[in-house]
């Protein structure tokens, strides 16, 4: 029983991180119609920046409790990168064919991956001090770090805030209007350029937050972003590209399948995930909750 509980908690932990990545990817696609291949790399940047900041903080003797502030700071720095990238690199491509948008974000992915290597080197960067600050809980006869529960909590809070922002604020109305008809929204006096920057910034913030909260549980390594992107694709394909509910359901499905896969069929765990994605695309091209 205790093992089952821990497996479910682990699945939720993974789902929470996946949701943050996939929701950002989905939000960016929903509003801007761009599939951002560099999204996983932005998640990795979030992890690296946070781990680096935590490391600096420890070296400077900052009280351990304060180091938790580094998590939002890491996420915000990724959002800042996004706000710079969107007008500089993506804006020239909205009127051009989708192929070019994919290519330019693929180029961005290559650049970001190597910049991370340039700045932080090839050795993994860890921030597990944060995990040790929080107590370890007893679940049945087994131990479970309280930090993991914090991650799950952050995922849930992020989902609620995002949902409230999109469906219950004026900004959300602007986002949805732009997503449905860019030209019409513009004709009604919306500053579409600003909405795009905001949407891309929020999407990047989500990816960065995912990286920031995951890095105390596992070190930041090169290539983590590229792997994460492909899994995030599986999530949004299952849930539906551009749908918030889809990202949530997709993340939960993927993480439970993956946890079960690691337990029962470790060789086929990834293949099964991709197969599920391919099957969903075949049966329901727009995913379970997609409309596009």
């Amino acid at each position, binding site marked *: 029983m205790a093992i089952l509980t821990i497996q479910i908690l682990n699945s939720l932990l993974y789902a929470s991180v996946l949701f943050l990545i996939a929701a950002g990817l989905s939000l960016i696609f929903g509003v801007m119609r761009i599939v951002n291949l560099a999204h996983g790399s932005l998640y990795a940047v979030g992890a690296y920046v946070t781990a680096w900041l935590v490391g600096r903080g420890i070296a400077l003797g900052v009280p351990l409790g304060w180091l938790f502030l580094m998590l939002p700071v890491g996420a915000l720095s990724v959002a800042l990168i996004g706000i710079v990238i969107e007008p500089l690199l993506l804006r020239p491509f909205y009127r*051009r064919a*989708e*192929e070019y948008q*994919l290519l*330019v974000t693929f180029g961005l992915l*290559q650049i970001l991956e*190597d910049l991370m290597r340039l700045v932080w080197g090839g050795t993994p960067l860890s921030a597990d001090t944060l995990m040790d600050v929080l107590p370890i809980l007893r679940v049945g006869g087994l131990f479970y770090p309280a930090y993991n529960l914090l991650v799950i909590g952050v995922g849930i809070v992020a989902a609620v805030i995002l949902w409230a922002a999109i469906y219950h604020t004026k900004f959300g109305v602007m986002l949805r209007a732009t997503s449905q008809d860019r030209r019409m929204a513009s004709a009604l006096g919306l500053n579409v350029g600003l909405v795009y920057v905001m949407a891309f910034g929020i999407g990047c913030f989500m990816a960065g937050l995912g990286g920031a909260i995951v890095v105390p549980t596992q070190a930041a390594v090169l290539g983590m972003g590229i792997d994460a992107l*492909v899994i995030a*694709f599986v999530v949004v394909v299952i849930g539906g590209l551009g749908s918030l509910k889809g990202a949530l359901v997709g993340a939960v499905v993927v993480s439970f399948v993956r946890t079960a896969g690691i337990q029962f069929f*470790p060789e086929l765990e990834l293949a099964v995930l991709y197969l599920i994605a391919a099957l969903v695309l075949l049966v329901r091209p727009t995913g379970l909750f997609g409309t596009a």
Partner: protein
Amino acid sequence: MTTDAPPLRNRSLLKLVAAAVPVLLVLIMVPSLVGTYQLQLVIYGLIAAIAALGFNLLLGYTGLLSFGHSAYFGVGAYSVAFVVEHLGPHSMEFYLLIGIPIVAITSALFGYICVRHTRIFFGILTLAISQVIYSLALKLYWMTGGSDGLRVPRPALLLGLLSFSGPQGFQHFVRSYYYYVLGIFVICVILMWVIVHSPFGKALQGIRDNEVRARFLGLQIRRFRWISFLVSGTFTGVAGILWVPLNGLTTPDVLYWTFSGEIVFTALLGGFRNFTGPIVGGIVFTYLKTYAVASTEYWQLLLGVVLVTLVLVLPTGIVGAISRAGQRLSRRKAAT
């Protein structure tokens, strides 16, 4: 219309032959001009050109952007490795004989699934399916050697007439293999030229430009896309088959989706709106990557910057830019 078409086609064929003959002569001369290492690079370039040529039938002529062509390259490479492992004969013809049907069947199967979608969903679906193959190659290590990959020894060429061992074996192999690959490259180019200029190729271009009109003309769109996918995957698979004996090793890296990205990059670099674009792109990309890797540890950064600049400044690629400059020049000449 029909009376005009043949002379026009003959003229473009004539132009192609006139351009191809000097290039071919230079390519035949290459081994007597350069050393083994450079020759190896040219072979890799030709192989990349075959892969990109196949890829471009989908992107340039059918209008479908595949982000999973690494699967067919990798399946070609791995099928050769399995032949070596389980069937024995180290003969290049045997590799091709076994490898081509395997690649064709794989692309037929995957294509059948993928062509149900277009645009962005086609891209994601091809990517997802190629990742299935990747993760299988990575995880089924008792068959594929996992991330260590599988070794492929030097094969004999031309039904065992040429075999390579002894101290100078590798140099001799590279030299002969160059002509071997060049021969297959020429066959592939001619074949692709015929396909693209056939009624079938014209139908693909019609579908690319306006799907609704093509459907009104009675074309079975999905079937055309499927056959295009099949041919495209097979060409890229042939490139994989040719690549592995030269490389001597196949690892899951050639199945990973970033390798698909490199194939896309190659086609775009040369220009996917031109027939010769992917060929030029394949050769230029091979040199670009080799020198980027040799000169800096951060070669990926360099390639990324080149890609972004290319997409921003030269969307029609090298060949597209050259042909446009040529047109402008001749127009200016005609004006004066």
